[in-house]
């Protein structure tokens, strides 16, 4: 709010934003159990260490883990990753699986930004040689990739039949329309398409919001980041992923934009009615849900798939423009750049997956809200080229520090339905971050550390400063030490564009 007259009056209400007294017991150094009590149908499992638990306890997210454990048909535990924080309904960093017959689907278990996700592009470029071009690259990226409120490219508008096709086909649409190579699809979670998308269940409003927002970054924590491989933890796996120390990388983080937000809002309204209709007791309206097999549940899944497919296309189109921009600024051809998609992963989604439960294979609806899928080596659903190493898991940190590449593990598959953390997790509210940034130039501070930032809004940079986030290293170390993810490489940023 710098430079404005308004002073926010902030109240921290007891029992609301403050921690509630949820009992939690240490299982081992990285696993903590919330024992069953009250209406909980299962126990909670939180991946954290003692130090991070103290931070987690400051908000009511542990109560939210317990709330999710009360929902009908939950299979296994209600889980939370170390980047857990207070969300709406489900906590951010929450993972919960539900039985297809008895279980529910909840828009609050996916979130407003359906298939918000991240993708990593590797290249053959030596980052040190490109460093001098970063300001020019950022300027061009900022021009070519719409970021911030209302910004859009006039040469891309998709509506009507074309939009319907995109919502059903996902990233396949970008291949047919020249924004991707067929080979890219294998490097996208679910081959870039959540099956079952039906545009009939996407409202006119959602379609209206989407038609101008395809290929736009949006604002908040969304970004395109140019970086490089700073450290390798596992040479063999890094080699398979095409990651080499010192080489340039690009991360793209965005989601389904207004289309996804509208789908979420539309279906919360519908599922509020459904919760009553099916007699589901919900402790918070935002946890509203419907049986997976109910008409309402199926409709949400069909609309959610459309929004998720929109997001896959969004990230692919942005990637196409990123590559085009690099070619233009560096005057290089595609062969010289050798850009390859390492992987594209969802952070907010519910998926129908088959998992082994008590020795039997069972279809489940796995909600991951602020969590990523992390399948181990030899899983059927990961690309052939990564079969021996496991699925890449991309964990972006804040713009001033670093990001990580991990792979999924067998332990993760057994314990968390193959799920892992998704990022750093906020520790400072946006208001507190802006207050902490007052009188400082965050942009200059970052430049002093060799990181250039170009942003549509001055406020965004302050809100997204490093201090506002947990150190992603601590989050990643917990999942690595707990064995639900395996560290492969660390990436460092050189330049970021934000909305």
């Amino acid at each position: 709010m710098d430079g404005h007259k308004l002073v926010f009056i902030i109240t921290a209400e007891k029992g609301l934003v403050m921690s509630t007294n949820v009992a939690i017991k240490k299982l081992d150094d990285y696993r903590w159990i919330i024992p069953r009590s009250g209406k909980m149908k299962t126990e909670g499992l939180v991946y954290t260490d003692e130090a991070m638990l103290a931070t987690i306890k400051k908000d009511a997210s542990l109560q939210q883990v317990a709330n999710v454990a009360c929902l009908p048909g939950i299979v296994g535990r209600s889980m939370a990753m170390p980047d857990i924080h207070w969300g709406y309904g489900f906590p951010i960093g929450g993972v919960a699986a539900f039985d297809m017959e008895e279980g529910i689907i909840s828009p609050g278990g996916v979130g407003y930004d359906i298939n918000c996700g991240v993708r990593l592009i590797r290249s053959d470029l030596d980052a040190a040689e490109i460093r001098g071009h970063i300001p020019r690259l950022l300027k061009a990226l900022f021009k070519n990739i719409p970021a911030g409120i209302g910004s859009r490219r006039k040469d891309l508008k998709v509506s009507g039949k074309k939009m319907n096709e995109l919502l059903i086909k996902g990233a396949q649409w970008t291949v047919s329309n020249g924004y991707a190579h067929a080979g890219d699809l294998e490097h996208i979670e679910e081959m870039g398409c959540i099956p079952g998308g039906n545009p009939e269940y996407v409202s006119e409003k959602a379609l209206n919001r989407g038609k101008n927002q395809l290929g736009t970054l949006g604002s908040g924590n969304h970004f395109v980041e140019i970086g490089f491989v700073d450290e390798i933890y596992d040479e063999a796996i890094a080699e398979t992923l095409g990651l080499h120390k010192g080489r340039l990388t690009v991360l793209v983080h965005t989601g389904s934009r207004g289309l996804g937000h509208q789908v979420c809002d539309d279906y919360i309204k519908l599922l509020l009615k459904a919760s009553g209709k099916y007699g589901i007791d919900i402790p918070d309206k935002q946890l509203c849900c419907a049986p997976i097999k109910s008409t309402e549940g199926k409709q949400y899944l069909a609309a959610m798939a459309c929004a998720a497919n929109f997001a896959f296309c969004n990230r692919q189109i942005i990637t196409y423009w990123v590559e085009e921009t690099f070619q233009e600024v560096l005057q290089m051809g595609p062969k010289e750049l050798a850009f390859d998609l390492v992987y594209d992963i969802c952070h907010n989604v519910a998926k129908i997956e088959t998992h082994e439960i008590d020795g039997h294979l069972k279809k489940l609806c796995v909600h991951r809200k602020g969590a990523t899928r992390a399948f181990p080596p030899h899983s059927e659903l990961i690309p052939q080229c990564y079969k021996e190493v496991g699925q890449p898991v991309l964990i972006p940190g804040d713009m001033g520090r670093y990001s990580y590449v991990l792979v999924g593990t067998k332990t993760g598959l057994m314990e968390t339905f193959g799920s892992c953390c998704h990022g750093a997790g906020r520790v400072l509210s946006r208001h507190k971050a802006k207050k902490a940034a007052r009188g400082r130039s965050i942009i200059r501070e970052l430049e002093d550390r060799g990181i250039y930032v170009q942003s549509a809004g001055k406020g965004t940079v302050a809100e997204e400063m490093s201090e506002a986030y947990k150190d992603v290293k601590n989050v990643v170390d917990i999942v690595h030490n707990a064995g639900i993810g395996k560290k492969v490489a660390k990436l460092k940023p050189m330049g970021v564009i934000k909305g």
Partner: protein
Amino acid sequence: MNRRYKYIEHTADLGFKAYGITVEELFVNAAEALFEVLVALDSVRARDKRIIHVDSIDLETLMVSWLNELLYHFEMDGFLLQRSQIDKMASCSLQATVCGESIDPARHEIRTTIKAATYHQLYVKRLNDLWESRVFLDL
């Protein structure tokens, strides 16, 4: 009534409590609380007028639907609310006249963007002749 709304801090997002002597006033104040998060309200002029209808399931969800309808107008063509007036009000629907203007980057600096008004810990209630509502925003 000395305060029309106040903000509630939240690690990832932001909430507010709005107040009103009448339920109509409550909805008007909540709309202002919403737009004050987006932009300095005193920088917005009432150049344009829109009639907005909203339907919902009950009074609480009507509050969220109202706020999200206003956000929809902002997202579609940058329409910023300056003030509003509730013309018709029932427990599950309302009609309002909203005055404001389309965003002008030269005069309006967007403070933060809002994905949606949520149903999380939402309430609309009447306490000692004062209407009060609590809404959290997903930023």
